[in-house]
């Protein structure tokens, strides 16, 4: 469909991807109707602070919002909050809202995100057992998330470990339970996982690794987590961070191609060319990794999808894809990640773990595919640039901290 015939854009999901799409459309000169539908009560907000500064109480809700609610009206974007979209009629090009109202679209953007997985055990519905995906979840957590309370965090991914760090900072006793043999098992190397394990242990976090939760115990509220080996870990509050599932129900009902996410092409188009999917809910070609499809859960992916869709609707040139990037803040450690480490066969360490300033570069044969950089922004930015451009770097140079990262990157780019 050519840009000029698109008059009505409907966006399902008022998260970061949905909000950014509206903003980019207006910034790019789109003058048609834009409506965003969101199930949550808040206008589009940032999720990263939910397990960082917002959980710590350093940020209020006003700073969480990507932009104040008033900006949408100013830009002529209609925000419909607290409403779920329940059906897509692709033939008539209409969507149906909960309650029955139907609305037509020329272009539809699915930005439905992902849902936190609930604990699949008895007792998971007891008061004091929480998930951490939305601002409402954090509000529910707060009353029990106080100094002296015993917190049990189930799942040692980034969200679990960030939550543990904030809990220690606020003076809670913290135990982290993880089914795998190490924390961060799905997202980083054993070396980097070991570093974070040591840091948290030094901060007083206890770990139960290779440990299976069997049941959540409690009468009127949670009192302990019962483990598969029969042991019990006392708990005043339990927070589960055991991953998310992409929100693909609408797409499935509509018969779109779904495979661990709504499958899209490089222009973020689904198997129906009038419907786009972006952000956590989509599975997209990973252009720096041989175009295999993959689902990313990151701010980078949400924003980039929004930019590409806006360009597509406006008939403009889409931006060049960035290497996937992500960050995590724990205590005074800033971890910055570029690229995807899966399939690496060796790594090169630069810097010193004991000095808490270290970068691990991941290689597949002689190709640089990812970096995990702790308090090392130059290493992160340099590697990100190289991965984006399909360039590698000399492992020997990288391992030598006396050669500035900027020089290493410049040399590699000149190749």
């Amino acid at each position: 469909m050519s840009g000029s015939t698109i008059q009505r854009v409907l966006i399902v999901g008022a998260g970061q991807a949905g909000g950014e799409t509206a903003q980019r459309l207006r910034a790019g000169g789109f003058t048609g109707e834009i409506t965003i539908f969101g199930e949550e009560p808040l206008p589009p907000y940032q999720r990263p602070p939910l397990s960082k500064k917002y959980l710590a109480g350093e940020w209020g809700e006003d700073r969480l919002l990507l932009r104040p609610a008033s900006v949408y009206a100013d830009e002529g974007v209609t925000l419909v909050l607290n409403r779920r979209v329940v059906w897509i009629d692709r033939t008539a090009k209409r969507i149906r809202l909960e309650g029955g109202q139907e609305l037509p679209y020329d272009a539809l953007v699915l930005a439905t995100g992902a849902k936190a997985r609930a604990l699949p055990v008895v007792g998971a519905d007891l008061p004091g057992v929480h998930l951490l995906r939305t601002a409402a979840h954090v509000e529910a957590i707060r009353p029990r998330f106080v100094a002296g309370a015993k917190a049990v965090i189930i799942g040692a991914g980034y969200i679990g470990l960030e939550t543990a760090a904030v809990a220690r900072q606020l003076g809670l006793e913290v135990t982290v339970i993880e089914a795998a043999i190490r924390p961060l098992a799905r997202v980083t190397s054993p070396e980097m996982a070991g570093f974070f394990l040591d840091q948290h242990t030094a901060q007083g976090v206890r770990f139960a690794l290779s440990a299976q939760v069997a049941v959540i115990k409690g009468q009127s509220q949670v009192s302990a987590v019962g483990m598969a080996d029969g042991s019990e870990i006392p708990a005043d509050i339990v927070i589960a961070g055991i991953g998310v599932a992409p929100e693909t129900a609408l797409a499935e009902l509509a018969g779109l191609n779904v495979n661990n996410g709504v499958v899209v092409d490089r222009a973020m188009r689904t198997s129906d060319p009038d419907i786009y999917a972006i952000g956590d809910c989509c599975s997209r070609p990973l252009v720096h990794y041989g175009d295999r499809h993959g689902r990313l859960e990151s701010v980078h992916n949400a924003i980039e999808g929004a930019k590409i869709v806006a360009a597509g609707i406006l008939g403009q040139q889409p931006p060049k894809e960035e290497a996937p990037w992500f960050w995590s803040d724990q205590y005074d450690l800033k971890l910055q990640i570029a690229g995807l480490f899966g399939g690496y066969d060796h790594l090169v360490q630069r810097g010193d773990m004991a000095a808490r300033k270290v970068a691990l570069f991941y290689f597949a044969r002689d190709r640089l595919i990812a970096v995990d950089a702790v308090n090392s922004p130059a290493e992160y930015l340099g590697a990100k640039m190289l991965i984006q451009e399909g360039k590698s770097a000399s492992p020997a140079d990288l391992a030598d901290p006396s050669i500035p990262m900027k020089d290493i990157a410049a040399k590699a780019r000149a190749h």
Partner: protein
Amino acid sequence: MAKITYIEHGGRQHVVEVPNGQSVMEGAVKNNVPGIDADCGGACACATCHVFVDESWLAKSGDKSSMEESMLDFASEVQPNSRLSCQIKVSDALDGLIVRLPASQH
């Protein structure tokens, strides 16, 4: 509260009142000033909130952390007065601040 003037690369000016405690980046993003992307939302993780601080305000806008310094080292068109605007905290002392925006954040 501080009145901050953001000057787009093309010369357009935006004068915005920004509450104390927020960052110079937030003042722009929340008031729809174009030219600051701020992809990471102020986590000092993306380097897409680059600004040039007017020379007369350099001293008052505070020092760069080594983290910020290294990030800026990789930004395009860096100058001695380059800052990541998410790392400049707004206070009454910055009332009248002027920052200029680069041509691109990427």
